[in-house]
């Protein structure tokens, strides 16, 4: 074959004459014809005569996995790129139904896990034992194996990833989060120190005091600012006491009894200093154009204050603020504090008084939120409809009636567009069943609605298939 390949590359213009190899010695014709015949003879016999090499196969997976396999039609479609946003729901369903992913799909699914950390726990929960066997053979998938994968993120991750991870840990195990951060504190960059310290507002307790106080004298301004804020949240610190004194001197509620106690009135009184108050850590920094500078100090001051300093009922305070010139900063500040403290009473009072925000809304207990939906669907901002989850059958029914009614009326640029925009998101929170309803596709507004309705139905249809498949 070497002789053949040599001659073939060179061509007969450079190499010709008698063949050395016995296989080709008897060939007839011109040098070109001989070379062609030799090529045919040589290569076909090489193909026919090949002997397979030897190698080691993969070691067998001996683990038994009695968990039944899930049906996988919708999974296959999602891995192919359709309705990727529903993959977390599929994984959750698979887990609650006690199934596992058919092994054939594991490589594709584990590769999703390589890219998307947030899905890893859900993937690990339904991947079964075969996935562990695979992960021992493919280092890309080793995330399945590490007992404490978490710690690995902390030790090897990049700045933002570590900060995110620490924030998660802080919500679950505040003590451990502090201990870990203390160990590496000296070697972290200023940005990272500030970023990580931020998450300490969750689960903040007296045990954090020494650490936070030390951070308040940090050489970085960024870190000092975060620490100063945390000290205000910490009960019993001098910083908190001073802060409260200051805020109380700015904002008061005057309760007056008139007509011999027959009528009461409350009035919000705000006395802000004429000059910008002393604010070394720039907790009140005015970089906002929505409100005036003073309003912005006030808003920040309220946001930083613990809610318990507002003695009396939230309703009383909010109503008084609404009757004053300071409604915007006060309500904004209370909203921030309410989310931080997860205070349901304040959340309820604020939501009933024109505050909005997903976090505030989700602070309400599910039943209460749903009650509000059923009663006031048309008055609530459409976004709230999509934030609520999950919908009960009754609430979904009400929602569909509402949608029918809204799609039937004339297109109102603001109202209708906001609802149309959240329509695809609504498909994620309602029960997974396509409603049998006749959409008003003969109205002039239908061309605006139809793409969103299509998206809504397509998502819902896919979810319905997913749930039916898992039955």
């Amino acid at each position, binding site marked *: 074959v070497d002789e053949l390949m040599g001659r073939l590359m060179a061509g007969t213009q450079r190499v010709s004459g008698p063949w050395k190899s016995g296989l080709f010695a008897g060939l007839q014709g*011109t040098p070109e014809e001989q070379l062609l015949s030799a090529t045919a003879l040589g290569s076909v016999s090489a193909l026919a005569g090949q002997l*397979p090499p030897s190698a080691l196969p993969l070691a067998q997976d001996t683990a038994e996995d009695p968990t039944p396999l899930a049906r996988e039609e919708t999974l296959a479609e999602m891995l192919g790129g359709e309705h990727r946003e529903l993959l977390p729901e599929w994984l959750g369903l698979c887990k609650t139904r006690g199934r596992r992913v058919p*092994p054939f799909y594991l490589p594709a699914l584990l590769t999703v896990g390589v890219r998307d950390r947030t899905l890893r726990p859900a993937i690990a929960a339904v991947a079964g034992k075969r996935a562990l066997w695979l992960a021992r053979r*493919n280092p890309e998938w080793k995330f399945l194996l590490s007992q404490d994968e978490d710690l690995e993120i902390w030790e090897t991750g990049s700045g933002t990833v570590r900060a995110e991870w620490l924030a998660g840990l802080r919500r679950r195990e505040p003590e451990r989060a502090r201990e870990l951060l203390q160990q590496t504190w000296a070697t972290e960059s200023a940005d990272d120190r500030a970023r990580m310290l931020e998450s300490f507002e969750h689960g903040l307790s007296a045990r954090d005091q020494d650490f936070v106080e030390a951070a308040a004298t940090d050489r970085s301004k960024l870190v000092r600012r975060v620490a100063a804020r945390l000290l205000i949240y910490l009960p019993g610190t001098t910083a908190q006491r001073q802060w409260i004194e200051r805020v109380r001197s700015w904002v008061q509620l005057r309760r007056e009894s008139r007509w011999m106690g027959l009528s009461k009135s409350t009035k919000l009184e705000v006395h802000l200093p004429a000059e910008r108050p002393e604010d070394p850590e720039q907790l009140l920094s005015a970089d906002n154009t929505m409100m005036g500078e003073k309003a912005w100090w006030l808003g920040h001051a309220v946001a930083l204050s613990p809610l318990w300093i507002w003695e009396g009922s939230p309703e009383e305070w909010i109503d008084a603020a609404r009757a004053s010139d300071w409604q915007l900063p006060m309500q904004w500040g209370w909203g921030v504090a309410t989310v931080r403290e997860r205070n349901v009473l304040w959340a309820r009072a604020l939501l009933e008084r024109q505050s909005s925000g997903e976090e505030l809304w989700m602070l309400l207990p599910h039943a209460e939120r749903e009650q509000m939906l059923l009663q006031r669907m048309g008055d609530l901002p459409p976004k709230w409809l999509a934030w609520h989850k999950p919908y009960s059958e009754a609430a979904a029914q009400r929602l569909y009636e509402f949608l029918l009614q809204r799609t039937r009326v004339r297109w109102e640029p603001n109202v209708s567009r906001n609802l149309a925009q959240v329509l695809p998101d609504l498909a994620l929170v309602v029960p997974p069943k396509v409603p049998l309803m006749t959409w008003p596709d003969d109205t002039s507004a239908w061309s605006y609605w139809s793409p969103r309705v299509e998206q809504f139905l397509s998502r819902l249809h896919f979810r319905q298939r997913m749930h039916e498949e898992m039955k």
Partner: protein
Amino acid sequence: MWTLQRIESLAPDASSIKAARGLADPRHWSGLGQHGEVLWGLCQGSGKEPYRTHADLAKPTFGCSCPSSKFPCKHALGLLMLWGGRPALLPEAAPPSWVADAKDKRDRPAVMRQPKTTPPDPEAQARRAAQRAGRVAEGTAFLGQWLRDLMRAGLSGAPALPDKHWNDAAARLVDTQTPGLARMVRRIPELLGLPDWQLRVAEHLGRVHLLLEGYGRIEQLPPDMQAEIRTRLGWPQNQQELMTRRGLPGPWCVVGQRQFEDDNLKTLRTWLWSAQGESALLLDFAVGNQVLFNPFSAGAWYEVELVYFEGVGRQRALLKSLPVPTSGPAPQGMDGVGRFLRGYAEELARNPWLESFPALLSGLVPGETSGTLVDGAGQVLPFWPASRHWKLAALGGGSPTTVFGEWDGHRLRPLVAWGDGRAWSLEAEWTN
């Protein structure tokens, strides 16, 4: 079985599938009905008049009064999906007149071509055959000279030759009614891109040479070799005539399918395997917007009659009847890479132009190195694409598995593997 997957395989593109899913909902439809294998319904579109949509599953054919240029349109696909999911929504009824009318006009059989009833004119046929033989002789003479020129110059400069060099020769061979030879020439620049191009091009040129040589003395060769050579040159076989021959009854198992698109031409290759270990290859083509009809799903058995094309050995075949799903066990593959390669060598000795040899092997385990399958004796069959390595590993977990693939003499392209009680297609879109 009309699975959703199968319905979707009819779609001309992904956006049609999406649109059809939205239409697979009773609120879009009125006047639904079915009779035998004919389905119909009125689909409310954006206009006042609903579209009249019907489908005949037997062929299958579709018709719709919508203006879409896609075939089948989203309405027809939606109707099929609706019926597939909830057949009870389409009550049994007599087809309305518009269905019958449209059916007569638009019926377009996709699988079977009915034999023409007009008798052929033997004289005209002979004249055309003689004309063609003359053109083909021109083509083979041209290619012979072209090959000798290439031999004189040597192959070392071949990778540097411009595309035009190959395209011009291929165009000439199309003109001489030898499209098979044109394809072979066009394949050369593809092979030149491979890492082992010297060997691959040599092997290919050897085959071209054998083909020309064979054609030169075709009268002295046995009939099956004559047919093989003519087909390789690009002579079409008379499928209508083939269909009149006695077919080979099933059941057949679909052991592998592969679809690809080349210059607007879609090709579907379907490999069938019988319980006796016979194999057959079905080829389906579709141009442009035409639909590739795929009545099969991988690993399933079908009761169907086949007719093999003429040629050396039995490979390409035609469906003589409509496939009817039946049940059967996972097919039994051959044990041992060595035995398989000996079988390949024997077939190669009979037919040196063998390009793709079906491989159904049992007891294979992915090797420690990616892109290898290892048999019980430790012998290796290399395969590609290597991305399928982990799918095969995941499926079998290192235990012996049955795999079907196409062997090109160098590497296996695995198409289907069996495990967890069923067949898994390695060609599915998401797997790559």
